[in-house]
């Protein structure tokens, strides 16, 4: 204590403290710059720009819609006085007659609107003006239908959501019949899958044999049907393309989509699925890579396995099914090798199988966890004692010195 004073004179101490301050300021500035670059990530590529050839989607710049037969150059304003123009776009060239719900052109989009520009006109095909009633939110409460299992389904279709949907250029009658009011629809998960399968034949064929599809034929509607995975709200009218960043099927959102059912304790208990698949995935390398990838979709590196990369999607099978890509170490190793070339069985054995390690299941990891749990705490406690010891002694000495007159202490 006596000897520190001339080692660090006040000048050099101030210089050092100033240096610390400068370094901190530099760090803060760097952080701010980084924030600035990380911040404006709002320019997401959206599904308004997804011209898919087979679907007649014209893409984001062709926004010609008609209200009762009038074509509006809607790049300006849907509510502006309509001027009849002939724009040579895909929609009008193929004779698609669009309809915009004119009153709500500026209603902010709800839900999965990551990609949407609220002020963009709403664009979809509705030849028979179905949405003049079914798109009226004030009528939503009146329009419900009972499912066979007793639950009710709303017949309201959100025009905003639908104008974002991948099927927005399919007329309502593509899925619903020409005379939907005359037809009694069963409205089951199976009937929905069959309807999707009328176009998506390959996916349907896989699905109906899968662990999710097969039980539907027996009237079990617990497992997921098409829209349960392809829409975050299980709504067929807001399905967006699989790789749209707002899609429930986008790699970053897959785990949450599966978790709708597979993180439901009651439902999983019913089927004897004990693994905490969602939590274990989110804590894994794959899960952290996905969930902590950059916020800007343009910069995300989503080249990491999600649920479907290992388990399959439309053709998903029971883990115990020998055809499952994760059944048995041999199949599992082959699945790992899709991304980890040359992985082999031993590599696959390192996977904990969505389970916690315990004395029976990979005991080395279990005891390793226990050892390090105790070890880190014991050593850190020792470190605290090592600091607290001299610190306490110095403090006590100082208090004693203050209380006693200095002469006595010298004697």
């Amino acid at each position, binding site marked *: 204590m006596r000897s520190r004073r001339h*080692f660090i004179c006040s000048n050099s101490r101030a210089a050092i403290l100033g240096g610390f301050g400068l370094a901190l300021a530099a760090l803060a500035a760097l952080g701010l710059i980084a924030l600035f670059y990380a911040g404006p990530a709002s320019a997401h590529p959206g599904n308004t720009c997804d011209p898919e050839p087979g679907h007649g989607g014209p893409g984001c710049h062709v926004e010609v819609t008609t209200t009762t037969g009038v074509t509006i150059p809607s790049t300006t304003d849907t509510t502006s006085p309509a001027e009849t123009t002939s724009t040579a776009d895909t929609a009008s060239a193929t004779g698609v007659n669009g309809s915009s719900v004119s009153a709500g052109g500026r209603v902010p989009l709800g839900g999965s609107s990551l990609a949407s520009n609220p002020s963009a006109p709403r664009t979809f095909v509705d030849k028979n003006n179905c949405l003049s009633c079914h798109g009226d939110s004030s009528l939503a409460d009146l329009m419900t239908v009972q499912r066979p299992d007793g639950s009710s389904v709303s017949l309201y279709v959100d025009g905003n959501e639908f104008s974002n949907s991948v099927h927005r250029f399919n007329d309502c009658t593509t899925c619903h019949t020409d005379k939907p009011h005359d037809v009694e629809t069963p409205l089951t998960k199976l009937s929905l899958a069959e309807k999707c399968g009328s176009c998506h034949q390959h996916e349907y064929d896989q699905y109906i044999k899968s662990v999710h599809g097969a039980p539907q034929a027996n009237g079990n509607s617990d497992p997921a049907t098409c829209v349960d995975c392809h829409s975050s709200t299980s709504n067929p009218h807001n399905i967006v393309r699989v790789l749209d960043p707002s899609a429930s099927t986008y790699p970053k959102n897959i785990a949450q989509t599966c978790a709708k059912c597979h993180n439901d304790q009651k439902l999983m208990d019913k089927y004897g699925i004990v693994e905490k698949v969602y939590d274990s995935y989110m804590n894994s390398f794959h899960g952290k890579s996905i969930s*902590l990838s950059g916020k800007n979709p343009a910069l995300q*590196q989503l080249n990491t396995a999600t649920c479907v990369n290992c388990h399959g999607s439309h053709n998903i099978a029971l883990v115990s099914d020998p055809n499952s890509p994760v059944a048995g170490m041999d199949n599992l190793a082959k699945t790992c090798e899709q991304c980890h070339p*040359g*992985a082999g069985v031993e590599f696959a054995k390192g996977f904990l199988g969505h389970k916690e390690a315990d004395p029976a299941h990979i005991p080395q990891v279990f005891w390793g966890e226990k050892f*390090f749990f105790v070890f880190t705490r014991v050593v*850190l406690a020792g470190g605290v004692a090592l600091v607290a010891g001299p610190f306490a002694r110095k403090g006590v000495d100082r208090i004693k010195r203050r209380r006693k007159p200095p002469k006595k202490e010298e004697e």
Partner: protein
Amino acid sequence: MATSGATADRIDGDFIRRFDIHQRIQHIMMFSSFIMLAITGLPMKFSDWGISQWWIGVWGGIDNLRMVHHGAAWVMISSFVYHAIYLVVCLVVLRRPFPTHMLPRFQDVKDLIQDVKYWVGLSDEPAKYGRFSYREKFDYLAVGWGLLIMIGGGLILMFPVTAAKILPGWAIPFALVAHSDEAVLAVGWILIVHMYFAHLHPLVFPMNKSIFTGKVPLHQYREEHALEYAQIMAAANLPLEPAEEVLSPVPAELPGFQEPVVQEARVAEPV
């Protein structure tokens, strides 16, 4: 490696040379990579914390963070290899027993007991240390153990496919446990023990610069390494209490530098 023995040439003015250039470079490599590894690794372990997610966002996602983590890892591995070569050269080529000073001895246990007595008030004398105190030895050997765990585990996690060809499959999840737990231990130890003894201790506050300059002030060396100090002074034929009064003109009672009291200039107010 001119700082290995208790020789008279260690004295450099008011300082005693303690670290040679290799040790200083190794320390710079070690602490810079340690800080980078800690600030990129901990958010990955505690990834559900809000601050981690904010910090990972600052870096533009976990992929960038991992890249920096791997880069810093190679710096740390290099410093480990550098130090291993340093030890081999010192022991085998130069035939200096210097590194063996780091090995624990029975005297270290006695020193610890003496210190515990001093801390709890059973003794008025703390232990006197030679070249390395038991705490420094533990620090050093713990870093050695920690580096083996961190580098071994980290390489398994960096090259899991290759690791699974050599090691059993469970080595990969085991490496993750060991790597992340040992990391928390290392960061905790640095924040508690190293931060106190190298920065906050009254003898060195705000920072012990000797690992950068290589030199320790005489008075500090006498307190921290009394036995080796005595050996050096004996080798140099200098008295043990050489220049306390000569070196320190400031009276002992003065706790530190005092700001001169500036009298406020009074301006006569116009009446």
